[in-house]
């Protein structure tokens, strides 16, 4: 319990006053010579149970009355389940606000979203507390911004909901950086979140560092988590999984693939109207949802032949979460997919050229060109999607060119050359070739993302069928995407901001591996890389909110978006934006549609060793976490006084009972 006037608690010893007075009173007895001792002796022999309890109760109620008065003037705050035992004034209070799209979910029977409820709850609670400085760290900007007080939470634009996911570990790292830099004496950290797994990333390696960092701080940092873990089982979301423009003899059409999901599936089949809006023209289709998800593949929407590029939006009827009821997309003519293969031994990498040159869609032109390392000067890099490098790692000017290529979004895959050099690229270099007597299978690979991710239907790629006879060790700091049975990495990604430089530990040559003979994996891997590289070349791009550099959005003009979105928040808000000739569709990440939350035990483990408390709330809850409860103590005081008075009323027999045998007394009473 916290007190707004903790100094008044110094008067708490006064609660002993009734006991002291009682003891003094006991010592201030009078002495009387008494005749009727036989009744006193008889009274002493009688049971003293009730009398003794009554005496103790009277003392207890008197003590309670005094304690109630002192507590009331100390202005206590009820902290609900939060153990704000220390109380007092914090030097700095940091509010870590999860603004992710899942926080848009409304509570049952209320129009308030989790984010609004959290803000109001924090406003109600924190406005009663005192703090030297108030800081807001919101999940979109991830910067500690000083605010005037808890009142600002309701009015600041930085507390409005966004479509971007939250990165709670990053917020905590920001909080830690602030505490370390400013060294406030006592810091309170309030986290308001819905505990989504994708926001918390509880399995990530950063948590241990965060824990240890906070534990090492000399000053006390206390964490309070205001959690909204409840998910609406009937919430539905819509997502466009693919869109492409297709021309045929009769005209042009847009082939739209979309997916509608429900948080908890049911056997019942539900018809859901889906609104399609393409360049402002609206139409509606109906999908039948059964089991929890329905996917519509290549739904053809006829468009004008002259409409080569544009934008659109799909939406479903409103439900508890408005953020996942719409999805934006942009479309354009397919961009030519150009791949440059640099090799000092072109014969060895024919399979690579073939896999890159044959596109999955006949309407999308694909091209692969094999060059020697010395022919790169003539390459038009602005049209290249993928660069495959099968030569000693580039150095000097050549390396700068490739770095620039990667910087603008081009994909790069390095294959080990026959003759290894000692040079490195992006902090990675090849070591010696290893030749295994027996072919080594691939034991582990990352199936949820990256080049080897599972297919859209969820089926895994047949990576396990690959066999590797010769491989080259990869040295340097990388993220391993696939590794051999002996632990050696086969496919690794260099740690760069763009995450688009890969190193493959073997080649498709028959003496090295079965990449070419079991060509599915190689083909999918290359086509994915090409598609990703091509996506930054076209005039339209599908982007994920929160993963966009805000600096690039300065020239953006909104074409379709929520009305109350600030121009500075385009990088975090879903919508369609235009910059010069380019169209950008910004949407929430796919992980935002997954309703999984971090379980209680792992969550407690994340804050193990830290001063942490948690309260689970529901959206729309109007009970304040903290409120002044001096009235309660006044009521306790009054109740104690009334009970004390009731107990103090002497219990005496009826007067006529005793005076019944006194005729004179009766007459006197009558007179």
């Amino acid at each position, binding site marked *: 319990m916290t007190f707004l006037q903790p100094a008044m608690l110094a008067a708490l010893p006064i609660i002993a006053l009734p006991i002291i007075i009682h003891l003094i*009173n006991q010592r201030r007895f*009078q002495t009387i*010579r*008494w*005749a009727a*001792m036989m009744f006193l002796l008889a009274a002493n022999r009688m049971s003293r149970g009730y009398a003794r309890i009554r005496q103790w109760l009277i003392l207890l109620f008197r003590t309670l009355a005094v304690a109630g008065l002192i507590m009331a003037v100390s202005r206590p705050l009820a902290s609900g389940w939060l153990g704000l035992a220390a109380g007092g004034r914090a030097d700095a209070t940091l509010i870590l606000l999860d603004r992710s799209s899942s926080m848009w979910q409304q509570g049952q029977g209320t129009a308030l979203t989790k984010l609004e409820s959290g803000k109001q709850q924090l406003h109600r609670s924190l406005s009663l507390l005192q703090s030297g400085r108030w800081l807001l760290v919101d999940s979109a900007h991830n910067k500690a911004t000083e605010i005037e007080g808890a009142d600002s939470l309701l009015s600041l634009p930085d507390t409005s909901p966004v479509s971007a996911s939250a990165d709670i570990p990053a917020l905590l790292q920001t909080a830690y950086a602030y505490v370390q830099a400013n060294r406030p004496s006592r810091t309170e950290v309030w986290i308001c979140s819905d505990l989504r797994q994708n926001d918390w990333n509880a399995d990530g390696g950063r948590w241990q560092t965060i824990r240890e960092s906070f534990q090492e701080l000399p000053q006390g940092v206390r964490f309070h988590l205001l959690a909204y873990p409840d998910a609406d089982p009937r919430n539905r979301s819509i997502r466009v999984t693919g869109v492409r423009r297709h021309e045929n003899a009769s005209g042009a059409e847009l082939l739209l693939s979309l997916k509608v999901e429900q948080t908890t599936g049911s056997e019942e089949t539900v018809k859901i109207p889906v609104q399609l809006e393409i360049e402002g023209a609206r139409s509606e289709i109906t999908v039948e949802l059964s089991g929890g998800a329905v996917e519509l593949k290549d739904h053809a929407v006829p468009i004008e032949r002259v409409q080569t590029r544009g934008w659109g939006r799909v939406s479903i009827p409103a439900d508890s979460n408005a953020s996942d009821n719409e999805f934006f997309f942009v479309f354009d003519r397919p961009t030519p997919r150009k791949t440059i293969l640099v090799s000092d031994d072109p014969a060895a990498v024919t399979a690579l050229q073939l896999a890159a040159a044959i596109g999955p869609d006949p309407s999308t032109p694909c091209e692969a060109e094999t060059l020697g390392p010395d022919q790169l000067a003539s390459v038009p890099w602005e049209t290249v999607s993928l660069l495959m490098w099968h030569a000693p790692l580039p150095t000097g000017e050549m390396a700068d060119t490739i770095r620039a290529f990667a910087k603008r979004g081009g994909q790069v895959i390095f294959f080990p050359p026959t003759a290894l050099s000692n040079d490195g690229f992006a902090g990675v270099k090849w070591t010696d070739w290893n030749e295994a007597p027996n072919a080594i299978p691939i034991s582990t690979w990352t199936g949820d993302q990256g080049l080897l991710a599972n297919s859209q239907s969820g089926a895994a790629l047949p990576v396990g069928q690959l066999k590797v006879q010769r491989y080259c060790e990869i040295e340097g700091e990388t993220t391993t995407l696939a590794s051999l049975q002996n632990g050696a990495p086969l496919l690794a990604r260099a740690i760069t901001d763009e995450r688009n430089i890969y190193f493959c530990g073997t080649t498709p040559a028959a003496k090295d591996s079965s990449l070419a003979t079991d060509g599915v994996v190689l083909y999918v891997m290359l086509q994915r890389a090409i598609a990703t590289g091509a996506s930054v070349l076209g005039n339209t791009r599908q982007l994920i909110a929160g993963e966009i550099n805000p600096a690039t959005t300065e020239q953006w003009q909104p074409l379709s978006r929520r009305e109350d979105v600030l121009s500075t928040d385009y990088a975090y808000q879903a919508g369609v934006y235009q910059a010069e000739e380019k169209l950008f569709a910004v949407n929430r990440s796919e992980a935002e549609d997954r309703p999984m939350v971090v379980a209680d035990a792992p969550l407690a483990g994340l804050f193990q060793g830290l001063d942490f408390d948690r309260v689970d709330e529901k959206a729309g809850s109007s009970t304040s976490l903290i409120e002044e409860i001096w009235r309660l103590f006044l009521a306790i005081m009054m109740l104690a006084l009334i009970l004390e008075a009731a107990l103090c009323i002497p219990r005496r*027999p009826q007067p006529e009972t005793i005076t019944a*045998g*006194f005729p004179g007394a009766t007459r006197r009473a009558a007179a």
Partner: protein
Amino acid sequence: MLHDRRTASFIDPQALARLAAVPLFARKPMLGNVSGKHASPHRGASVEFAEYRKYVPGDDLRRLDWRAYGRSDRFYVKEFEADTNLRCCLIFDTSGSMDFGSTGITKIEYARRIAGSLAYLAIQQGDAVGLSCVADRVVRTIPPRRTPAHLRGVFNILEHAEPKGDTKLAARLHELAETIRQRALVVIISDLFIEPAELKSAFEHLRFRKHDVAVFHLLDPLELGFTFKRPMRFLDMEGGPSIFAEPNDIADRYQAALKTYLDDIKTGVLESAIDYHRVSIDESYEQVLMRFLVGRTRSRGAR
């Protein structure tokens, strides 16, 4: 009668003058020495006819009823009730507890007034008065006499009686029941702070000896009300252990004990046919005595 002597401090002549208007009667036949106002168990020479009895040789011929002989041709002797005086034995409790009084008068002082007044009234109407002061023993006793000079002695004893010692009233009553000659008026003036069962036994003994027993049970208003506010240390006036008590704590149990005791006493005196008067000593003793005398007037006549 008292004008030529120094008046005792506890005697109020005016009150006595008012009380003298009502005679003191016994509820039972008394055995006295001389003729008086009270019924006797024997036949005598009063004017009140009692019965006819057959003449037996030796009877005084002057008592033959010649009219009855004339009607029945048989000799009958006509008998009349005897009137006698009574012996009033005052048993005066001088135990230590009688020294208590919260209203400006102690119980022993109150008892002196009752005893002194009764002694005066009895002797004034020719009855004999005796006095026994009892505490843990019979402190002082004088036998009943009916002379006015004897009254002075009674007053002297009353005046000099000191409240001292334990209450052993039951034992002393048993003792006095044996020593007082049968058929006397025994008046007990005490606070009766003994067990009701013991007291009842003593009363039964007195009744067995055909005494007419009257009891003045003196209680102080403070003893009845127990209206203390502060913690008190109670010192036993009869030398027992002291008790420390918080009045609020003990009052209800004290009252319960007192009520039980008074109920038991009441039951005891009703079963023993005792003329019982419970007196709160803030009441005027004159009214108490008037009630006593008037009550006896109503119950007079049994032989």
